[in-house]
């Protein structure tokens, strides 16, 4: 039996930051379960190398939901394989990614509508109905 038969997992040397992200995510998810309050990790300020980033994407996996938001450019909010953890990428009107976050929440903060917006929606519905009468 040669040495190659001994299973050795070699991880890229730059995984420290990616591991720290996973650990912090676990803390945030625990907090979400305990208090209902989640949080977010800003990937823009973390020194993640492409290899570390790929490793992180791989570890988090892919969930079922993908949300596309069009507000001042395209954003995508993708559910990871770890429910409650969302990968959020904000782009501007030129299609450039301006910020990237991992958000821990039951529903990502940008998604729900506000009460004022629902009220406006109702007004709009009613004015549409008025036009029909």
């Amino acid at each position: 039996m040669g040495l190659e038969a001994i299973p050795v997992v070699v991880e890229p040397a730059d995984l420290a930051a990616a591991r720290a992200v996973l650990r912090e995510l676990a803390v945030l998810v625990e907090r979400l379960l305990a208090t209902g309050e989640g949080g977010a990790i800003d990937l823009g300020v973390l020194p993640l190398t492409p290899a570390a980033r790929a490793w992180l994407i791989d570890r988090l996996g892919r969930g079922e939901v993908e949300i596309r938001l069009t507000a001042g450019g395209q954003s995508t909010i993708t559910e990871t394989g770890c429910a409650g953890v969302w990968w959020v990428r904000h782009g501007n009107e030129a299609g450039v990614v301006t910020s990237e976050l991992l958000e821990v929440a039951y529903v990502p903060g940008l998604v729900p509508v506000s009460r004022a917006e629902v009220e406006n929606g109702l007004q709009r519905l009613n004015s549409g109905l008025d036009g029909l009468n």
Partner: protein
Amino acid sequence: MNELQERLAWRGISRRGFLKYCTMLASLMALPPAAGQAMAEALARARRPAVIWLPFQECTGCLESITRSHTPTIEGLIFDALSLDYSETLMAAAGHQAEQALKRAVEDNAGRFILVIDGSVPTGLNGAYSCIAGRSNLDLLREVAPKAAVVIAMGSCAAFGGIPAARPNPTGAVAISEIVRDKPLVNIPGCPPIPVVMTGVIAHYLTFGSLPELDRLRRPRAFYGETIHDRCYRRPFYDRGLFAKSFDDEGARQGWCLFELGCKGPVTYNACAHVKWNDHTSFPIESGHGCIGCSEPGFWDAGGFYRPLSAPAGPLKLAAGAVAAGAAVGVAVAIANRARKGAARAAHVTATVADLEKADGGER
């Protein structure tokens, strides 16, 4: 809906779009993500803070940068949502009406307004080189600044004297900080400065009630903490000793480092390389021109935009092959300068263009 949201909605910017922008702002300022939400809420809640914008010895490029970087800018809209009580360039009023507006804005908001100044202050001939309504900039600044809450020196002229202060400085131009010494003051240098830096500073002030952390030149560290060179996409070529020798040679076509063509990126602290210009489109080095160092003090007198710095400022990481081939510029000079640079780094002092400039100049 609050007033800010109404104004933004009127310009087609939704609550989500605004929140997204604040998230980006927080990220650029290296604040925790929750700060984006806090900023959005604070900006929405804030009583429209009065802003008085005084244009001194300047070219209006800074104001153009803020208001016209692309259409419509959120920077512009937020700026619009502030109460811009006096800006003689933007306001419809002129003459006595404009002067009345300034007087009223200062009196009504004494101790609370944000004073933004672009342009340097000429001190020669007792300030007579630049006057508004018969009053010198110097006079006006001495009267208005003591009543401001904070002062923002916008652009390199206001921050460091800029082009008006270039040798031989015929008007005796000085930076705002030379005159205003007892107020919280932030310098946002650049010729012109990056619009989002001003929004970031104002958003920080309105959210946390303080200016962001500043460096020794009173620039916000979040935007001026690294050099252009630190974040430059051509850096791998620099590290391998691959330099364009002229603007149309093979190296230039291959996108090699512009160091030998006079790039001042290694000694210039600014955010162009990652924030970029024109809606994050690009920055000058991406257009094939070296950085001219416009956000550093004295950039105009730094010996020529096309004259190379004498030594690489970052750690040399030349491949053995590149060194053997003698491909790198000034390796010997770099060694000669290493002690000086090392000392500067140890003392955490920014090496200036003058420190690194070639003594004999010009050769490539």
